[in-house]
C-alpha cells in the first residue's frame, strides 16, 4: 500500500481513539545526532543525544563534512536507543518528526532521509520542524508554557526575538544583523585562548571577573529596531586585547570575559524589555544554547520580575540541540494536521515565519 494512504489511516485511527500521541523525533542540523520519543508534546519519554563536540574541538569549530560523516555513523544507533529507552516499538509511534531547516545541509540530509524512511516503512505522518521552533518549544517541555509569548532565542547560529501567537504562528520582531551571540562567545573565547566551545568557558571565567572592568560599546541600531549586532562588540574586545598586548600589560582574562558577557546580556535584555513593552505579552521564553548561561538566566529573571511578566526557560540540558524539543514543536503541527510528504528535504536556510 502507498505510504500516503497508510499514513492517513493511522492518523484517523489515532484521532478517533483519543489516546496519547507518541512522536519519534530526530535532530541532525549541526553537531549533535539526536532522537527522542515525546508524548503529547509535553512529556519526554526518552531522549538520546550523540554529541560530536570532542570530534570538532580540535578544529576550533564545527566542520560540515566531519559532522555529516558522524551523523551517518550515529543515526540508526540513536533512533534504536530512543525506541528501546522508551520501551516502544515503531508500531507504537504515531508520527515521525525531524528538523528540516535551517542547518548544515549535508547534516540535515542524514536526519531527514532517516525520518522519511521511518515514516515510509511504518506508514506514519511526517512532520518537518524548523530548528528554532524546536528551541522555543523546549521551554514547553520544562515549564508547560503555552503561547502566546515572546521568545528570545540565543545560540551559536541565531539571535532572534520572536512573537508566538495563541495558534502557534511565529512572527519575527528582531534578529542579529551580523554574528549570533553564541558565535561572539566562541570568537572571544578563541581570542582569549580558552578553547572550544566558547560559551561555557567564558561563563566559568566570567564568574571570577569584574563585569564593570571595561565598558564595551553596545551597538546602536536606531531606537525602534529590535535587531541585534555583535560584531562591533567583538571588535572592541579584540582591540582591547591587542592594545594590552602591545603595551605588554598582563591580560586580565577573567575581567574581560566578565565585561564581555555583561555587554552581551545587557543588549539582549534591553531588546527583550522593549519587545515586551511594545507587544504587551505577558510571558518571556528564553531558549537556545546560550540560555544555559546562568548569568543570562538570572538577568532574565530580574527583568521579568521588574515587568511582572512570567519567565519560562528550558532546563539547562534542553538548551543545547536535542530531539526532544523537535518532538515538542512537532506536536502542535500534528494536531493541526500539517504534514510533509516524502519529498521533504533539508534546507540550509528558511524563514521561521513561513514555517
Amino acid at each position, binding site marked *: *500500500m502507498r505510504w500516503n494512504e497508510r499514513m492517513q489511516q493511522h492518523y484517523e485511527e489515532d484521532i478517533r481513539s483519543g489516546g496519547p500521541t507518541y512522536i519519534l523525533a530526530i535532530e541532525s542540523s549541526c553537531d549533535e545526532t539526536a532522537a527522542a520519543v515525546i508524548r503529547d508534546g509535553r512529556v519526554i519519554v526518552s531522549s538520546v543525544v550523540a554529541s560530536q563536540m570532542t570530534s570538532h574541538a580540535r578544529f576550533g569549530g564545527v566542520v560540515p563534512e*566531519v559532522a*555529516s*560523516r558522524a551523523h*551517518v555513523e550515529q543515526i540508526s544507533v540513536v533512533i534504536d536507543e530512543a525506541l528501546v529507552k522508551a520501551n516502544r516499538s515503531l508500531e507504537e509511534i504515531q508520527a515521525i518528526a525531524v528538523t528540516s531547516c535551517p542547518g548544515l545541509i549535508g547534516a540535515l540530509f*542524514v536526519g531527514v532521509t*532517516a525520518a522519511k524512511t521511518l515514516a*515510509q*516503512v511504518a506508514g506514519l505522518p511526517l512532520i518537518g520542524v524548523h530548528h528554532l521552533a524546536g528551541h522555543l518549544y523546549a521551554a514547553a517541555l520544562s515549564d508547560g508554557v503555552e503561547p502566546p509569548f515572546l521568545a528570545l532565542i540565543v545560540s551559536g547560529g541565531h539571535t532572534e526575538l520572536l512573537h508566538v501567537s495563541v495558534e502557534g504562528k511565529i512572527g519575527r520582531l528582531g534578529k542579529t544583523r551580523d554574528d549570533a551571540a553564541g558565535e561572539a562567545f566562541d570568537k572571544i573565547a578563541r581570542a582569549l585562548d580558552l578553547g572550544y566551545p566558547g560559551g561555557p568557558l567564558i561563563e566559568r571565567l566570567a564568574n571570577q571577573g569584574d563585569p564593570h572592568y571595561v565598558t564595551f560599546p553596545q551597538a546602536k541600531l536606531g531606537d525602534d529596531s529590535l535587531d541585534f549586532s555583535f560584531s562591533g562588540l567583538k571588535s572592541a574586545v579584540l582591540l582591547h586585547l591587542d592594545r594590552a598586548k602591545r603595551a605588554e600589560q598582563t591580560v586580565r582574562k577573567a575581567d574581560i570575559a566578565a565585561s564581555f558577557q555583561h555587554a552581551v546580556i545587557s543588549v539582549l535584555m534591553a531588546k527583550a524589555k522593549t519587545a515586551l513593552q511594545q507587544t504587551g505579552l505577558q510571558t518571556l521564553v528564553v531558549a537556545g544554547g546560550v540560555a544555559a548561561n546562568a548569568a543570562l538566566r538570572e538577568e532574565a529573571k530580574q527583568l521579568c520580575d521588574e515587568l511582572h511578566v512570567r519567565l519560562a526557560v528550558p532546563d539547562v540540558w534542553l538548551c543545547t540541540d536535542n530531539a526532544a524539543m523537535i518532538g515538542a514543536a512537532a506536536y502542535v503541527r500534528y494536531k493541526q494536521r500539517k504534514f510533509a510528504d516524502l519529498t521533504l528535504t*533539508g534546507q540550509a536556510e528558511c524563514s521561521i515565519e513561513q514555517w
Partner: protein
Amino acid sequence: MALLAIDTATSTLALAVGDDDGHVLAAWSSRIPKMHATYVNPLIDEMLATVGFDLRDIKGIIVGMGPGSYTGIRIGVTVAKVLAIARGIAVVGQSSLASAAYALRLQYGLVAVLWDARRHSAYTVAYRVQYGAFVEVLSEEKRDIASFMGLLAHEVQTGEAVYLLGDVAGVAAQEYASAFSCNPVIVYDATASVYAENLLSLGYLELHKKMRSLEVSDHGKEAHVLVPRYLQLAEAEARWLEKRRGSSSNESD
C-alpha cells in the same frame, strides 16, 4: 517478499527491486544530480507500488557504499541503515565502483572505472573480464589520473581490449591514447553511473547467505556499523593530521 537495491553515490539515483531469487522486478534510474535526498523515498514508494509491494515486504537490502559524491553516498546508506534496523532485515554494502564495472561483465578485456575525484584525481579500479569472470588487477583507490593510466598501460596485454567508463574516462582515453597504441580502447560510458540491477546481481549471493545465517536480531546491529567508503579523509581532517605530523605532503580534499 522482495529485495531492494539502492545506489546514490553518483549523479544517477539508482533503485531496483528483486524477488527472493534476486531476479529484477523493477529497476529505475534517474539522472537528477543533487536531488537524491528529495527523491529517493518517493521513488522507492512509487517503484514498489508498481510491482505491488511496500517497504514492509522488503527482506534484504543491497546498498552502494561509494566511493563517489560524499553527500550523495550518505543518502542511500542512511535509507539502508534505518530500514534495516526498523525491520530487522539484512543489509549488504557493495562497492559502487565495482557495480559500475559489472555492467561490462559480458565483455572480454580490461575494464577500468574512473570517477572524478577533482584535482586531476579519480576514484579508480580495474578488472580483467573473461567469460563473465572478474579478476581485480588494480584495487579500488583514489589515484592521480596520470598514474592510474600508467598502471593500466603496464597491466594491459598486447591486443587486449580496454574498456573505460566514468565521467573522466573520455578525457583520460584521449590524453593517454599513445600508451595504448596496440590496443582497442573503448569508452563505454562517459558518465559516472551505477545501475541498481547490477548492484542486485553483484550483491545477491552475499545477501542471500547473510539472510539465512543471521538471527533476525543481529541484522540491525550489523546495519549500525555500516559506513560509506569515502576513500579519503575529510579535508579538514587531512589538514589536521598533516599539521600534527608536521609533514609537507599535500594529500588533501
